[in-house]
């Protein structure tokens, strides 16, 4: 029989996880690097509810009355704007952090439901181009694998300024994930710890960015949309400056956003949550007169369900993108891998060592034996199922609010359950007309 621990009181400040962190730091002498996103409790979409229809608003009939979900991105400057059939896209995740099989599975799943995938730090692979009908090519500070041929093969270009998990930080790919193919694509020796630069090598500030975007348009003959992705920090100003620099689409990634490998102190302590970030970005676009018209807003960071999708859209996003949830849909953190996770000192539901390259699900690894375990077709089907559920859920909520297109959701449809969420999202605390900061 195990000992009775009911009399032991855990410290709030020095809880067991914190004590473990200190012990780990003392023994290893180096900061903790991990994958996944912020794990601590943050104000989020759960703190909002939809009002639904009432006497003064009438709902749409589920399944019978249409509720549109398509989004057209980048019609402002591009000759070929990108239309996605559902308001959920797959976020940029590098080949290197993910196996080729995982990239292929993401492409298959997204293409099955008519949405886009995104490359990542490390260039474009044939697997993802071949299996993604709509592919966004990231233009990152490292410029690993960057070349004009791939640039011209892209359906959109995303200039990455930052990421929610680490605004102001560069990339990291530890030596044990650098296979020969990854090393070659990045023009670097095998087995070394690769750090991707945190700043672009040939531009700084919004005036330069404007010239850079012009150059990318000249190289691609003004055919495809150009996005600018920022980690959520000074989101209102970043949105304004990205638009001023010529972005067709602004991508804002909240602090909950996932990562392949980042210092834990960065993941948990830099950036603002997705909730205020959506509202700030939408506010900037409204002020510029471009919201829902000229420039689109894509939001990411902790999107899990159709409710999250619908709430992000109601607060002003045109679409959302997902990283972590997509990997889980492919098979990450699966219960049937419990024995294998145990060997790695973890358990299903807790696995976060995406930096380590030993993923038993074959997703965040470059090990040929492990990555072989992921069947790209089956995993792609799981992702497609999941994306369909997100879409159906978002439609269900939109219909309940009487909207014939998810984009017609608006802040007026929402109320907040906490004062924090009310203040951050600027929607009233439930049952009151009160938005903190806006009087009584």
């Amino acid at each position, binding site marked *: 029989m195990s000992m009775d621990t009911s009399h032991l009181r855990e410290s709030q400040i020095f809880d067991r996880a914190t004590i473990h962190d200190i012990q780990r730091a003392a023994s290893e*002498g*180096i900061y903790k690097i991990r994958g996944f996103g912020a794990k601590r409790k943050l104000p989020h979409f759960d703190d909002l509810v939809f009002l639904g229809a009432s006497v003064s608003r009438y709902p749409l009939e589920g399944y019978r009355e249409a509720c549109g979900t398509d989004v057209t991105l980048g019609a402002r400057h591009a000759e070929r704007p990108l239309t996605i059939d559902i308001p959920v896209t797959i976020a940029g995740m590098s080949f290197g952090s993910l196996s080729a099989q995982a990239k292929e599975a993401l492409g298959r799943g997204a293409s099955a439901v008519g949405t886009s995938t995104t490359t990542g730090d490390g260039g474009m692979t044939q697997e993802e181009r071949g299996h993604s009908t709509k592919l966004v090519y990231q233009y990152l500070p*490292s*410029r690993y694998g*960057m*070349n*004009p*041929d791939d*640039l011209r093969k892209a359906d959109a270009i995303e200039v990455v300024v930052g990421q929610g998990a680490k605004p102001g930080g560069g990339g990291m790919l*530890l*030596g044990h994930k650098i296979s020969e193919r990854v090393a070659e694509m*990045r*023009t*670097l*020796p095998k*087995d*070394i*710890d690769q*750090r991707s*630069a945190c700043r672009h*090598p*040939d*531009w700084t500030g919004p005036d*330069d960015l404007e*010239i*850079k975007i*012009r*150059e990318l348009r*000249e*190289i*691609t*003959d*003004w055919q495809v949309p150009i996005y600018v992705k920022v980690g959520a920090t000074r989101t209102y100003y970043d949105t304004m400056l990205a638009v001023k620099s010529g972005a067709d689409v602004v991508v804002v990634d909240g602090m909950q956003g996932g990562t392949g490998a980042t210092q834990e102190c960065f993941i948990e302590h830099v950036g603002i949550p997705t909730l205020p970030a959506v509202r700030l970005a939408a506010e900037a676009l409204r002020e510029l007169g471009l919201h829902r018209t000229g420039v689109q807003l894509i939001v990411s960071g902790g999107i899990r369900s159709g409710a999250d999708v619908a709430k992000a859209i109601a607060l002003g996003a045109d679409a959302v993108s997902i990283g972590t949830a997509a990997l889980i849909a492919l098979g990450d953190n699966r219960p049937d891998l419990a024995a294998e996770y145990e060997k790695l000192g973890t358990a299903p539901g807790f696995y976060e060592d995406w930096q380590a390259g030993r993923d038993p699900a074959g997703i965040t690894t470059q090990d040929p034996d492990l990555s072989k375990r992921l069947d790209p077709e089956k995993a792609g089907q799981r992702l497609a199922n999941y994306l369909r559920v997100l879409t159906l859920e978002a439609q269900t909520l939109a219909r309940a609010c009487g909207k014939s297109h998810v984009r017609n959701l608006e802040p007026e449809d929402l109320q907040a359950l906490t004062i924090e969420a009310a203040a951050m999202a600027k929607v009233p605390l439930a049952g009151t007309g009160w938005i903190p900061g806006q009087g009584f």
Partner: protein
Amino acid sequence: MNTIDLETTDLRRANRLLQGRAREGGAERTFTVTNPRGAHALAAGLDRAIDVTIQGHVGYYCAGMNQKASVTIEGNAGVGVAENMMSGTVRVTGDASQSAGATAHGGLLVIEGNAASRCGISMKGVDIVVRGSVGHNSAFMAQAGHLVICGDADDGLGDSIYETVIFLRGAAKGLGADCEEKEITADDRKILAALLQRAGLTDQDPGAFRRYGSARRLYNFKIDNLGAY
């Protein structure tokens, strides 16, 4: 020969002519561009073997992502000349601003004057030959290719360098983290002589250069190197 006057032709049309995308001028192989007046992204995205001479100073990203073309700038170049070049040759007869040849994967960039800071930043296989001196943090995080500097280098040369080889004739004010002087072998001198030859700088004596590269001490994260991170 085709002359494109930027006083009367807008940038987009000029680039489409050079890129061979415009309906006319597709068969032309030699172009002269006049009145560039600091235009940005001029001759960017070329991907065919043509000769382009630009008479005057250019702005940012001239010949950006160049493939196969040979571009000569008769004047000074702004930030990021030949950035991410893949192949071909870009020659600047004057000085080049910051980040010349940034992230370029191939080809040859010749700067007959001086280059400002971060020349060859994150270069990935290009060969860069500078007749004059380079500014601070040149060859920062440089991954592959050669950087030849006939003059001096400012502080932080080769900071966090990977496998790029630097040949420096003058003095380096300071080397960046993990950059060190290496022994120069007869084979190295042959490579250097060939680079100088290709750049047309045959008056430079390969025997007068020193070689720098990565000490490879920062390749894997070690706590003992904490001071360098």
